[in-house]
């Protein structure tokens, strides 16, 4: 956790900052979603409160705080209150393992712009995000309502089935990079696209060396599976159908409901950050490696070495955030363009199409690596 007290405290504050960043990003994402959906449906969306309706979300948060803290009689109190608290934990723990920028060296300390660097990055993220099924089961059972129990069982069955396809698509990525550690993966995506086939290497001049060009099918399966993991449309069967009204969080109101939203958006952010790290070169600037960026900055913009370090880290952080925002927008865009699945279509898609395709992708990658590369 760090050599001395100063580094430990910096790491601790960094963890808290990343968690607060995620909690703060939820109102912005909700605002983006409401404006985006309004734009698609040719209406205005929130624009009364403050400029362009930005303060609307703050007003909503305060309104939620003022709501009466209500729990139905039949509710199992401890589970009813434990579920929203537990909703925040898995997404944040997994999000903190994602490298957001080049490590920053100031004096003799080197800080990593990520919560903690795991040498089993992907396996830790998969393990922690598989704990998300418990918050749904606790909420379904805790609210004592027959419909919420049914909604919770359906939602967790859906999350479970798509975790298989998620796990299998990740196998293709591990074979490609040969490591679990996310920082090593991002470093492996530097420079221009080149690969060796049957002995001679092929070098393209304009394609960056991103993962999407090696594993397009794994990217598609991974992206679709993460939609199902975060219960986003078109997979939000849990609260979408007529008779289930709001699925497992039907009995929740006020701030507890907002915490479930934070959990759902946390999973959405985790999914888009993983897409960026696996397939779109993480924090790398497309045609430049961190060393060239550092030397360019050192030569042209700032003389002092510490300043150059900070600026390179900042540039890489901005490039990570641009790609991150693109994927968040795609998540929101898909919600307002695709219709919802029926439940048996949803499960059939998970078990009978995505799982075999992910298996096929694994076998094809292994065959290519074994016979060709």
């Amino acid at each position, binding site marked *: 956790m760090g050599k001395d007290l100063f580094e430990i405290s910096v790491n601790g504050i960094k963890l808290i900052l990343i968690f607060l960043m995620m909690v703060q990003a939820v109102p912005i994402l909700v605002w983006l979603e409401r404006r985006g959906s309004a734009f698609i449906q040719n209406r205005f969306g929130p624009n009364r409160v403050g400029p362009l309706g930005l303060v609307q979300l703050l007003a909503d948060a305060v309104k939620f705080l003022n709501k009466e803290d209500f729990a139905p009689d039949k509710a199992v109190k401890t589970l009813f209150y434990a579920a929203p608290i537990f909703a925040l934990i898995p997404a944040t723990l997994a999000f903190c393992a994602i490298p957001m920028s080049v490590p920053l060296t100031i004096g003799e300390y080197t800080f990593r712009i990520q919560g903690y660097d795991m040498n*089993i990055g992907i396996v830790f993220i998969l*393990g922690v995000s598989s704990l998300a099924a*418990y918050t749904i089961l606790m909420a379904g059972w805790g609210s004592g309502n027959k419909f919420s129990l049914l909604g*919770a*069982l359906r939602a967790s069955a859906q999350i479970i089935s798509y975790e298989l396809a998620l796990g299998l698509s990740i196998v293709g990525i591990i074979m490609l990079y040969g*490591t679990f550690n996310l920082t090593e993966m991002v470093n492996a995506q530097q420079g221009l696209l080149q690969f060796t086939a049957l002995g001679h290497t092929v070098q393209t001049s304009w394609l960056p060396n991103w993962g999407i060009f090696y594993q397009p099918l794994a990217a598609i399966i991974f992206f679709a599976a993460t939609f199902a993991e975060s219960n986003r449309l078109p997979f939000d069967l849990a609260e979408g159908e007529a008779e289930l009204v709001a699925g497992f969080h039907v009995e929740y109101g006020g701030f507890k409901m907002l915490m479930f939203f934070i959990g759902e958006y946390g999973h959405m952010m985790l999914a888009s950050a993983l897409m960026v790290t696996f397939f779109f070169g993480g924090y790398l600037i497309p045609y430049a490696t961190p060393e060239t960026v550092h030397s360019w900055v050192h030569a042209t913009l700032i003389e002092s070495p510490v300043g150059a370090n900070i600026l390179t880290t900042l540039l890489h952080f901005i490039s990570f955030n641009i790609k991150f925002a693109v994927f968040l927008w795609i998540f929101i865009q898909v919600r307002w363009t695709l219709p919802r699945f029926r439940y048996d279509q949803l499960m059939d898609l998970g078990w009978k199409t995505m799982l075999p395709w992910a298996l096929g992708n694994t076998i094809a990658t292994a065959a290519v690596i074994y016979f060709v590369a």
Partner: protein
Amino acid sequence: MTPDIFLFWLLTIVTLGGGLAVILMTNPIYSALALVFTMVGIASFFITLGAYFIAGVQLIVYAGAVMVLFVMVLMLFDLKTEIAAFTRGLFTGALKIFSVGVMGGLIVGAIMMSAGSLDENIAKVNPEIEASMSPDAPTKLLGQALFSRHIFGFEALGVLLLVIAVGTVALSRSRGGTHAKQ
């Protein structure tokens, strides 16, 4: 009092507390959630013991899949807090607790007795892992051992999993199924 020693004692309290809660809770759903807590505690123990991949597998397989099955089954057949959670009869209960205590004492005694028998000259840290620079060295070691010496066991497990899959489907389709034709 370096951090990882404090961590060990914190994990001991969490895991043993969770283990006790699994047994003593009358409501089976609370004992299932306590078992999830214990699984996560044991996964953290694996991390302090340097078996990182196994900790990840424990999180995914046990805490993320097996326990979800337990909680789901308990919720499907909503078992209220049962009155007769523990075996009837004070004497037989005391006898059982006594026998468990004797067994536990014997094991702990055996451990204390054999304290020094493990020869001390084994390197504190695995030399191969220390030598290689890549962060995945411990897992690579595991993978190489698994696929070089234990291939037969690995294939046998594949067949075992197939047998279990076929078995549980057949078992669930027995006359008891709610949708089965009575």
